[in-house]
């Protein structure tokens, strides 16, 4: 009986935390959807791709951790299916055509605000804790190389890929993406050389 009470209390506590996370996630999406915020973050390619969309994904991540952390798990072996959903959704929103569409057609703007949290953030939030350290390492390594390749492409591309952004913004985005890759790489090099390693892992 006492054990059951303890369990109830624990469930309750995590229930409260879950609610809090979900609330933070939803407020973040609402905040990002405010017209002033949208105008600010969509005025440049860098803010759009590296601030707004990642923040929307982060909001989804919070909601995912809060609401769905125990759901779908029998379908989410080792977190790989969730990771795949997130990867495909990310690839979709990296196609210049659809980023343009989000800016020129309200329907696609709404789609962005729904699908980025729902198909990138939530699956990642559910899956990341279930992924093995090896899978996580693969994701990080790929993120670094993809950012470098994309960044280099944007710097080197002579054509404008987005009708809604100027070419110099494309270039600025390219350099920022490469800097980001460098920062992530530097972080992991730091961890490899100076981090504490848990032998049990």
């Amino acid at each position, binding site marked *: 009986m006492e054990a059951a009470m303890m369990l109830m209390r624990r469930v309750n506590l995590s229930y409260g935390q879950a609610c809090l996370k979900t609330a933070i996630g939803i407020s973040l999406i609402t905040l990002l959807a405010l017209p002033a915020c949208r105008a600010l973050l969509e005025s440049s390619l860098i803010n759009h791709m590296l601030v707004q969309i990642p923040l929307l994904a982060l909001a989804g991540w919070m909601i995912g951790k809060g609401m769905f952390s125990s759901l779908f798990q*029998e*379908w*989410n*072996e*080792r977190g*790989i*299916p969730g990771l*795949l*959903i997130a*990867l*495909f959704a990310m*690839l*979709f929103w990296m*196609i*210049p*055509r*659809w980023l*343009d*569409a989000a800016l*020129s057609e309200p329907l696609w703007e709404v789609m962005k605000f729904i699908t980025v949290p729902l198909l990138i953030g939530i699956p990642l939030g559910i899956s990341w804790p279930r992924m093995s350290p090896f899978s996580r390492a693969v994701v990080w390594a790929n993120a670094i190389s993809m950012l470098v390749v994309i960044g280099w492409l944007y710097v080197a591309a002579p*054509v*404008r*890929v*987005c*009708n*809604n*952004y*100027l*070419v110099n913004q494309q270039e600025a985005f390219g350099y920022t993406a490469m800097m980001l890759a460098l920062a992530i790489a530097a972080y992991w090099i730091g961890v490899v050389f100076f981090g504490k390693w848990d032998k049990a892992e």
Partner: protein
Amino acid sequence: MRGAITIVALLISGAGVLWAATDGLQVITAEGARRLAIEDKPKPLPAVLLTDQRGEAFRLQDFQGSNLLVEFIYTRCVTLCTSLGETFEEVARKLPDGTLGHQVHMVSISFDPRDHMDDLKEYGERFDAEPDHWRIARVENHDELKLLLNTFGITVIPDRWGNFEHNAAVHFVDRQGYLDKIIDHDPPSKTLETLWKRL
């Protein structure tokens, strides 16, 4: 087993979505999508009133029965629009005698409200445009200009220095007055080749 099935199903549906999102890996940019959509489904043009470098009013519909080449420019532009102008200049020079003005007409449309008749005239003279065959035009009415740019799929954004970024291309309007092909303006030989097949 269930894991494997889930993963395969996700891979297939994910690849399907990306396939659809790029029209079968054909287009990744809005510009590419614009061109493909026009080829699949040619578009009629709005009967917008234009004014050319002589101050003469006309509509794009006036050229029905002839091939029409359209490009969008602004006369202060020294980069893209210059090469657009050079393309039309070369097309005008290389077309067989008697073709231009009969089987082929050309129109360069300015989207810059600062461009007045004198600017259009100067632009035409820069590229040896014969006003009867190659009109440099502006749209007087702001809403009509917007409608025209929308129909053609031209996005224009002003930058900080009084210039514009815009998508540059040569637009083909067929004898029935339908916009039915959009190609790169560079190299000009590509425009000539495409035109050749229509004469």
